[in-house]
């Protein structure tokens, strides 16, 4: 076929990708949009194979098969609760791919490349490796392979900045004289190092911000590849990814009322010790409640708001949550879900889990939609959420999370909190909510507790109806 069709195939692909993202503006057509995106990718790949320089296909086929097998099996068997880890991991693949393409391009063209192409290649390789190692670190922290606590040492930021600056200098030198392959590879190595060192000092629960940011770097790397190869679908897709990642990380930082700088260099999450001390260790006068007490509260309630948090993901309690909610709805209780923008460990984390448990999405409300409702609600069920329901963020200017918008659960008649212990959440600070008079703490794994509550309700069903 005619290779001059390639750019048209790429145009089609680009349009498909745009439509994919457009479709995500509502759950109704989102799925069709996703399929369209996959189709676009197919078109792009087939188009590429028309490329005259492609002469041998065995490696291509091999790569496609291996990749498809790995990708598909990951997609099929990975639990929804592991989504953040999965995304971090695949960002690292993406970064690696971009970097390797850059290197192979350089190896092939050698010193012959012009300045402009060289600049693009260098950016591609640097950002690619940076994304690769950075995402791997993020993955490790989320998985617990690496400590989630920020690892800090004196002059850390200085060192990172120095490394980064060094890389830029090298970039300049390589562009000035593309022949200097040693410098080129050294720059790649620096990207490799920066990726690790820049992520190490960031707390585990800030990883979502890091991941999104790396997502946008990956996008820029792809765009750079596009500039180097004069390939426009790469530039377009790269630009789309870049903005997406950037916007998401912005939104998250805002939802936590923290600046980018604070997230990236603030080593947030080291605070706990002092904060804990300030809080005077484990708080006093906690209403430790039995399942029976909790059941009593639920029976009395006419309206209930469920506030899920990271804990629901940890104990995979989404199904148990929905079952309890349905049992209550069967008793005529009005049940709504309140999902905080940064509940869990990635944007929309809770929404996906609840969707998995068949909770209809129009029963789920955003912060601004529902925050005034708590005062008018009989009972709130906090399932493994902590920071996002910490009144200190609202009332206590001294608190590290002061100013972060939180749910006003403490304004409800009664609050049931399901968690395993009195330990703090990600931010590592004590939560006044747990010592409020209208709060009942039901300690234990969320899933188990929810099952017990449901059972307890059944037991009393006859009473309730009789």
């Amino acid at each position, binding site marked *: 076929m005619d290779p001059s069709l390639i750019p048209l195939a790429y145009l089609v692909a680009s349009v498909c990708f745009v439509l994919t993202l457009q479709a995500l503006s509502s759950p109704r057509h989102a799925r069709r949009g996703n399929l369209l995106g*996959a189709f676009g990718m197919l078109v792009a790949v087939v188009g590429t194979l028309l490329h005259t320089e492609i002469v041998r296909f065995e490696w291509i086929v091999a790569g496609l098969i291996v990749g498809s097998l790995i990708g598909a099996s990951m997609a099929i068997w990975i639990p929804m609760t592991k989504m953040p880890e999965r995304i971090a991991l695949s960002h690292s693949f993406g970064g690696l791919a971009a970097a390797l393409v850059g290197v192979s391009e350089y190896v092939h063209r050698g010193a012959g490349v012009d300045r402009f192409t060289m600049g693009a290649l260098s950016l591609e390789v640097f950002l690619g490796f940076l994304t690769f190692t950075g995402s791997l670190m993020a993955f490790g922290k989320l998985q617990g392979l690496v400590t989630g606590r920020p690892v800090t040492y004196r002059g850390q930021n200085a060192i990172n900045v120095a490394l980064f600056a060094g890389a830029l200098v090298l970039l300049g030198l390589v562009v000035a004289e593309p022949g200097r392959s040693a410098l080129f590879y050294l720059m790649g190595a620096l990207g490799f190092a920066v990726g690790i060192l820049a992520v190490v000092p960031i707390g585990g629960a800030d990883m979502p911000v890091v991941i999104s940011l790396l997502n946008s770097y990956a996008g820029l790397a792809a765009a750079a590849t596009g500039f180097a190869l004069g390939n426009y679908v790469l530039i377009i897709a790269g630009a789309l990814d870049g903005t997406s990642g950037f916007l998401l990380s912005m939104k998250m930082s805002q939802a936590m009322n923290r600046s980018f700088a604070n997230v990236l260099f603030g080593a947030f999450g080291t605070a706990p010790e002092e904060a804990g001390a300030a809080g005077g260790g484990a708080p006093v006068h906690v209403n430790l409640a039995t399942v029976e007490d909790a059941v009593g509260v639920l029976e009395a309630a006419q309206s209930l708001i469920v506030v899920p948090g990271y804990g629901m993901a940890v104990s995979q309690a989404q199904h148990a949550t929905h079952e309890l909610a349905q049992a209550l709805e069967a008793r005529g209780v009005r049940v709504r879900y309140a999902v905080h923008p940064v509940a869990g460990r990635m944007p929309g984390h809770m929404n996906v889990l609840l969707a998995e448990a068949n909770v209809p999405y129009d029963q789920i409300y955003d912060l601004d939609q529902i925050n005034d409702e708590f005062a008018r609600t009989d009972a709130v069920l906090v399932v493994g959420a902590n920071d996002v329901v910490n009144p200190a963020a609202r009332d206590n200017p001294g608190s590290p999370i002061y100013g972060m918008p939180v749910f006003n659960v403490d304004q409800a008649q009664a609050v049931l909190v399901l968690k395993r212990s009195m330990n703090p959440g990600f931010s590592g600070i004590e939560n006044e909510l747990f010592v409020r008079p209208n709060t009942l703490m039901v300690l234990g794994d969320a899933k188990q507790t929810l099952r017990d509550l449901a059972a307890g309700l059944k037991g009393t069903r006859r009473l309730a109806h009789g």
Partner: protein
Amino acid sequence: MSNELLFGLYVFVLAGFLGYQVISKVPPLLHTPLMSGTNAISGISLVGSLVAAGADYNTLSTVLGFVAVTCATINTVGGFMITDRMLRMFRKRRPPAAVGPR
């Protein structure tokens, strides 16, 4: 300044604006599918990898290309499949109006 670069700039700028507009319309409800979706799209670096793996430049290029193809394929195939798996799960009960102000 070279045409290549110039056209690239136009495309990049326009796509950037477009991305901003489109992404900012995605509701928090779908932020996770958005992440895995863009992740799948970023697998487009596949098209670069294919040339590297298929063009018979030299062994190193080919091997690097092979690895790149594998990684990129993992992203696309995995990304689109898992996004689909997620989106399949989103169901609704009452009319969208109930979702509140958008």
